[in-house]
């Protein structure tokens, strides 16, 4: 009887702890907690989910996302801003999609970035950036690189 009770107490404490842990993690940009871990999914799933993110971004705003892909960047002269992207390919390797991201710590390009096309894994918070003309694009904010 005593044994059972003690076990229940331990479990209850553990549960509380994990809940507390979660609430801290949700606010923190430093931990590795993620809501959607794309890095562990198959290519088909990754492509489908990213497609959903691009077509219906509102469902995903605020979620912490981990993804694996190829690094890519381009400079948009119209807005004088350099965009960084994590690009994934579908199972046929004929279609590719990407999500733009912003690094957590400001970094210098190209010194602090990997070379074009090299594999990267990032974690960050999904957001939907509205542009002045009303059309927006999804972006991952506060992204950190994972080795």
């Amino acid at each position: 009887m005593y044994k059972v009770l003690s076990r229940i107490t331990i479990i209850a404490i553990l549960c509380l702890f994990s809940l507390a842990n979660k609430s801290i993690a949700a606010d923190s940009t430093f931990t590795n907690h993620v809501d959607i871990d794309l890095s562990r999914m198959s290519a088909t799933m990754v492509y489908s989910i990213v497609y959903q993110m691009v077509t219906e971004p509102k469902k995903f705003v605020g979620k912490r996302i981990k993804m694996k892909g190829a690094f890519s960047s381009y400079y948009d002269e119209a807005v004088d801003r350099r965009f960084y992207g994590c690009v994934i390919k579908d199972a046929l390797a004929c279609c590719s999609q990407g999500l733009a991201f912003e690094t957590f710590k400001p970094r210098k390009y190209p010194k602090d970035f990997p070379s074009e096309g090299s594999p990267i894994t990032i974690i960050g918070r999904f957001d939907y950036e509205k542009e002045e003309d009303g059309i927006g694009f999804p972006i991952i904010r506060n992204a950190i690189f994972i080795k």
Partner: protein
Amino acid sequence: MFDQLLFYLDFPFVRYAIIVGTLISLCSSLLGVTLVLKRYSYIGGGLSHVAFGALAIASVLKVTNNMFIILPVTIIVAVLLLCGGKDARIKGDAAIAMVSAGALAIGYLIMNIFSASANVAGDVCTTLFGSMSILTLKSTDVYLCVALSIVVLLTFVLFYHKIFAITFDENFARATGVNVNLFNLLIAIIIAVIIVLAMNLVGALLVSALVVFPALSAMRVFKSFFSVTIAAAIISVVCSLAGILVAILAGTPVGSTIVAMDIAAFLICYITNFIRSRRI
């Protein structure tokens, strides 16, 4: 792996894909038996290319829902091909070859000239090989697919005997007073609808496989029209489900994985029949 599967099933679009995939493969296999027996196996390929051409036009015109252009165009071509068959100047297979290659070329050309999105190669590739489309359906598409498949299924069940009579012997059916022209028209419309739906599942180039393989597999093993129809339906549904699940788990393209499953089923049926006929 099982955990992984349950995890994936949590996503609504995966569940939609499974439901829609099952319904589409069920419909396509039922009509596939009729098509194979009427010697119209290649019509699936022809019509899907037409649907691809219509899709190109629809995407240039920027219609709210592509289906509103694709469906009518495909239905009209299906009716022309299947019902104008006998007295037409250009005979069946030549007409299909002409229409399918023509539509494909025009479709690709239109997509290229008036490219609506930046990724033309990707769009073309997805519609042709169906690597993803079933997993990226919008909810309106899902409802449309489900509704159309149910209509097709009900029509098939209701007119099953008439379809059999016409498939087996059109002349005799006409002599006994069956309205053959009406039912041929109905079959053509149903087939067009199925082809358009099946493009979502396996892509335009592979539609023929979805229509033909289950019917041919079932015909190896079973001997009555009823058992062939039921077996084709079961084989098709099982192969599509297995194909979708494998594609999701292993990260392979959906369309070609399903067709690979269909080929495997065909080989199993072929070998079964071979062994059985040896024994007797």
